[in-house]
């Protein structure tokens, strides 16, 4: 029996799997870059057009609105990696029966999943940094409202990514019971885009809609950090929002922990 060698960079190696797959496929990188540029171009012209006859709307001026929309495009790239092409989604592993190998290694499936997600998010974050620097340098977006706002935005963004991770994990874990999660993924993605502010900042929606979404975890992922960045949420409100995000992370983490335990007791493989 081989004892584990602590010097092996297991975390790094596991986290590096998806980024390495991307780097070995230059067409995918080119496609991501082109898609991002086109999306930003469209978003900038759309919001400039919408603000052509007004200077302020729903508490946002043109600069804030454009900055919010462009950053939303960039940040959705953090979890934008598509593992489907690499036959590496939980749904595919269950469908092809390869999920058994997750349970045959001396690395808990839960830990493996976390490491892979961290790698994916770090890779996505590299795209965000490049895109952000380019947009800021070219004057497409504005700098943060203040240094404190930038720090609050960073903390909020981190918590928002944790919320998003947990939501994605829950839809993946669902596959252990349903064998499919297509509908759930579509619903979550739509809810995520609508209620997080990816389609449009939540400030433009009716008050009841904003109130409703405030009870859900989705706005934690985009609306809260970006509103802090542009100054639409005052920094003095940040502690309360960060606490709210933390509560969602803890609640979702408890649920996912419970489900992981149950999922590992019912590894079913289609076709024997």
């Amino acid at each position: 029996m081989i004892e584990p060698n602590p010097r092996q960079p297991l975390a790094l190696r596991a986290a590096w799997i998806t980024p390495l797959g991307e780097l070995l496929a230059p067409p995918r990188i080119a496609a991501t870059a082109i898609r991002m540029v086109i999306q930003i171009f469209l978003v900038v012209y759309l919001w400039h057009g919408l603000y052509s006859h007004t200077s302020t709307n729903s508490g946002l001026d043109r600069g804030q609105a454009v900055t919010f929309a462009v950053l939303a495009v960039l940040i959705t790239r953090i979890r934008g990696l598509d593992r489907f092409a690499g036959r590496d989604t939980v749904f595919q592993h269950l469908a092809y029966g390869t999920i058994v190998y997750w349970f045959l290694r001396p690395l808990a499936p839960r830990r493996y999943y976390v490491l892979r997600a961290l790698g994916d998010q770090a890779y996505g974050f590299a795209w965000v940094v490049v895109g952000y620097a380019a947009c800021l340098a070219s004057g497409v977006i504005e700098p943060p409202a203040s240094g404190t706002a930038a720090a609050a935005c960073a903390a909020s963004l981190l918590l928002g990514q944790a919320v998003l991770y947990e939501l994605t994990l829950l839809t993946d874990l669902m596959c252990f019971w349903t064998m499919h999660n297509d509908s759930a993924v579509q619903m979550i993605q739509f809810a995520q885009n609508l209620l997080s502010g990816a389609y449009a900042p939540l400030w433009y929606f009716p008050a009841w809609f904003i109130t409703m979404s405030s009870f859900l975890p989705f706005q934690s992922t985009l609306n809260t950090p970006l509103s802090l960045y542009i100054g639409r949420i005052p920094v003095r409100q940040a502690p309360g929002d960060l606490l709210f995000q933390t509560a969602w992370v803890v609640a979702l983490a408890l649920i996912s922990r419970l489900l992981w335990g149950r999922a590992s007791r019912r590894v079913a493989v289609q076709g024997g």
Partner: protein
Amino acid sequence: MRSADEAHGEGIVVRGLTKVFYTTVRRPGFAGAVRSLIAPQRAAKTVVRDVSFDVARGELLALLGPNGAGKSTTIKMLTGILTPTRGAVMVAGMNPHLDRKRNARNIGAVFGQRTQLWWDLPAKESFTILRSIYGVPAERHRARLAELDRLLELSEFWQTRVRHLSLGQRVRCDLAAALLHDPAIVFLDEPTIGMDVVVKEQVRGLLRHEVEQRGRAVLLTTHDMTEVERLAERVVLINHGRIVLDGTLEEVRREFGGTWRIRATIADSALSASSPSSQAVRARDLPSGLELLSQDRTELVFAPAAATGYTPAITVPEALRAVVDRYPIVGISIEETDLEDAMRAAYLRQGVATAEPEPETGPGQDAGQVVS
């Protein structure tokens, strides 16, 4: 048979292993669907029933049986993926489902064409990731990889992304991935399915090496009888979840195929209305101690009738004499029964003997599991 304690820490020890799956029975029609939703009806299916066997270190055991016999479910319990309903399992001295993580260091597994390699990465990159996961020291990894490369010629294609590998190349890489961390126990569930004869022979060479030189305990399931003949010293035959035979290949042949068969060609003129072979040879017309395996117009194939124990009910000279005396023979030959025929006979005979009505109702444990 040794007790679990005696075999502790060695190979695989299985005692009274049983697995029952509980599923929801869907009632027909709309009303049935609604009723099933409100008051689901559960059905129990025993997929593995009181199975016991050992596999020692340095031994390759073939676990054989028809599709749906319970082979894969047995392997999944031995690897710790599934929890047994009853019975005891020790794999290299550990209870696999209770100590899944520690057990993982002792075992390697290949499940048919299901790959554990990362689809978008070169195969060699997958080996490096597995090295990190298993914590194999770099020097040991290099030596082991070189050895596996020598046996499987991996370096010709290991820089290729897995998605671009042929089936044979991929399965060779999967075998290497399962063996890289030097496991004491190896589970191979139909590893050579769909592979060409050259690759199959290469894989057989590897398995012989791993068993004889490395002293691994290998549990192999396969439908390829050539593979069984070339690799297995002992087989466990399983059908309907039960062990039908645990013994050598010779015992399988003696028990289920006879060791020979007689192929006789009768004269065309014998095919008259009054002849016993006019339509088909009837049971009462058969020489005593023989059974008719097949009839293709004038060609009859006989084998010794099933007998209790491993001794055929009739000898070859007696059988020849009986056939010649009974039919107008124009040609006759004796053939050795091959293993595939013996297995076919075993599956058919035991399938009839052991089939039992299911289901029985039971608790809601494991509901919805997909049974292999």
